[in-house]
């Protein structure tokens, strides 16, 4: 399935957002997630099914002003 992850085109096997995080190596990392600009809580990720052309955001803390 071809989706956008953090703005980049990716071919992925995972069917859910939780699965995608494991596939991409985030595993136990503390990240924030959104699919198609809608926030997804960490506890809901395994229940969020991905589909072709979805846009996934995966973010972590960073310096800010």
């Amino acid at each position, binding site marked *: 399935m071809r989706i956008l992850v953090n703005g980049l085109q990716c071919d992925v096997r995972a069917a859910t957002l939780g699965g995608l995080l494991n596939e991409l190596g985030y595993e136990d*990392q503390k990240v924030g997630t959104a699919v198609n*600009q809608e926030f997804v809580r960490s506890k809901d990720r395994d229940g969020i099914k991905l589909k072709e052309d979805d846009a996934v*955001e995966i973010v972590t*803390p960073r*310096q*800010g002003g």
Partner: protein
Amino acid sequence: MPDADRLRLYGSEFGSRLFIGTARYPSPLALEESIRASECEMVTVSLRREAGGTRSGESFWSFIRNLGVKVLPNTAGCRTAKEAIATAQMAREIFATNWIKLEVIGEEDTLQPDVFGLIEATRALIREGFYVLPYMTDDLVVAEKLLDLGCQALMPWAAPIGSGRGVNNPFALRALRAHFPDTPLIIDAGIGAPSHAVAVMEMGYDAILLNTAISRAGDPVEMARAFSLAIKAGRSAFFAKPMLPRDMAEPSTPIIGRPFDQLS
């Protein structure tokens, strides 16, 4: 100045009236020492994309947590209300705080806030229990609408983000202060030097949030100290009520009894 001159925001009290950003420092050590020198009690942080396995975000978050200061996540760079809302929700989960410095940018050259998107995002986030600190222009009508939505403080700009120009429109900032005498007003963006900070604190502003003026100074730690002192000086001057300026001179030394008076 009152004995207990503490800043109150959304039920929290702050001894310092300076909030600083954590970006663009030459090193983590310079950031840590600048935070200490500034005496600030809350720092801004953000969220950015990160590749799996990198863990630089975790490392930064661990570093900040160990400093023992409160964090104020921002929605920096968001272009729409929808982006800002989702970013705020992600920030709440990661940083475990309801506080959000809400930015919705409307114009690239000036990074001017999109006040329409700001109002839309504020409405949604206040409903969800966020403590919204909205980054706004100095527009009185926008300020009124944000307060109507439930904001307990406002953050007008002094000048464009990162410009260091100081106050672009002192008339507008004075008008804002006069219209909302009881609302905490925090200047966010455009402050470049401690003298700018003194000027807005003398106007009666409650606090200042800045980043680049410290982080890009030749010596960030010394500049952090300078801003801390400037904000205290400006606050004291506000309570002391500065004299009114005059167009013409007025001698400060008494005229009566001047030697040689009326001889020449």
